[in-house]
């Protein structure tokens, strides 16, 4: 920690109105940046998980990746490991986002954070119930990615509503479109659509947010 602000001269009034206004903006930008800096990482981790995971699945099925094949059980393990890993990473980042702060904003953050695993588990269990009741493997491979993208898209839209974030709104809409359109391509191409559109949207929005935060840092 530096002692740059311990100078007693700082106790004196800022010399001018524009300097004072600049100081306010600078401080509030620093606060916002500090609070948001984890989010691009979250999006990036999920973007990698979706891109690599769905490409692995696409490479696991007959009629999928024309360049190389991955045995399906291995592709499924890679996919599951990436999803679980991303969930753990984003839970850790999420819990640090508003650290040291208590109050109304905690409630929104906590509800949002807890909603993720609840809706993801619910979507998964609905698929399991359909599978138990006779949905075949091809239908399952169309259903799971679609409902997963729908759930994730809705969560980002909810995030956009809570934190008034256009970035998250756009991301949520793209994920919902990806989830809705992908099954029309049939299996296993739906996985490629998910990897490119869904994973791509996550990676790009993470990058855009990272660059926006860095630009504000310079301003």
């Amino acid at each position, binding site marked *: 920690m530096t002692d740059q602000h311990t100078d007693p001269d700082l106790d*004196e009034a800022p010399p001018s109105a524009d300097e004072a206004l600049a100081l306010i903006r600078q*401080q509030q930008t620093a*606060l916002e940046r500090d609070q948001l800096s984890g989010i691009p990482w979250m999006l990036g981790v999920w973007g990698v998980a979706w891109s690599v995971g769905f490409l692995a699945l696409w490479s696991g099925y007959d009629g999928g990746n024309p360049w190389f094949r991955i045995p399906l059980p291995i592709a499924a393990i890679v996919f599951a490991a990436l999803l679980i890993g991303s969930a753990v990473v984003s839970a850790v980042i999420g819990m640090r986002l508003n650290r040291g702060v208590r*109050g109304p*904003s905690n409630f929104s953050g906590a509800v949002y954070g807890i909603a993720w695993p609840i809706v993801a588990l619910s979507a998964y269990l609905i698929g399991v119930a359909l599978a138990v009741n006779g949905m075949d493997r091809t239908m399952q491979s169309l259903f799971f990615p679609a409902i997963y993208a729908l759930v994730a898209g809705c969560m980002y839209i909810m995030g956009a509503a809570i934190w008034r974030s256009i970035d998250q709104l756009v991301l949520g809409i793209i994920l919902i479109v990806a989830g809705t359109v992908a099954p029309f391509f049939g299996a296993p191409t739906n996985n490629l659509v998910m990897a490119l559109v869904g994973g791509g949207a996550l990676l790009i929005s993470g990058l855009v947010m990272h660059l926006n935060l860095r630009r504000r840092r310079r301003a």
Partner: protein
Amino acid sequence: MTELDPVIHAAARLRITATLAGLTEGDRITFPRLQELLDMTAGNLSTHLRKLEDAEYVVVEKTHQGRTPTTFVSLTRRGRRAFEDYTETLRHLLGEKS
């Protein structure tokens, strides 16, 4: 209204108030986290917080989280209003200049 509030119009207290006003209304922040965000020494921050507390702009609450003592700082409604008036006055002054 062209008088700048002398309680806020000092670099250190202006930075403290701006940071607290940047939080959601009603939120309170731990002393160490506020110190980290402001990059100020504990002594310096305490001194300025006391001045803001005397003006009833901030509330400093000492509580316990389990066995660990924790100090929370928050902007009062009066403090938030004073900060809003302050920024409005600044803009007014700048508007007059240009």
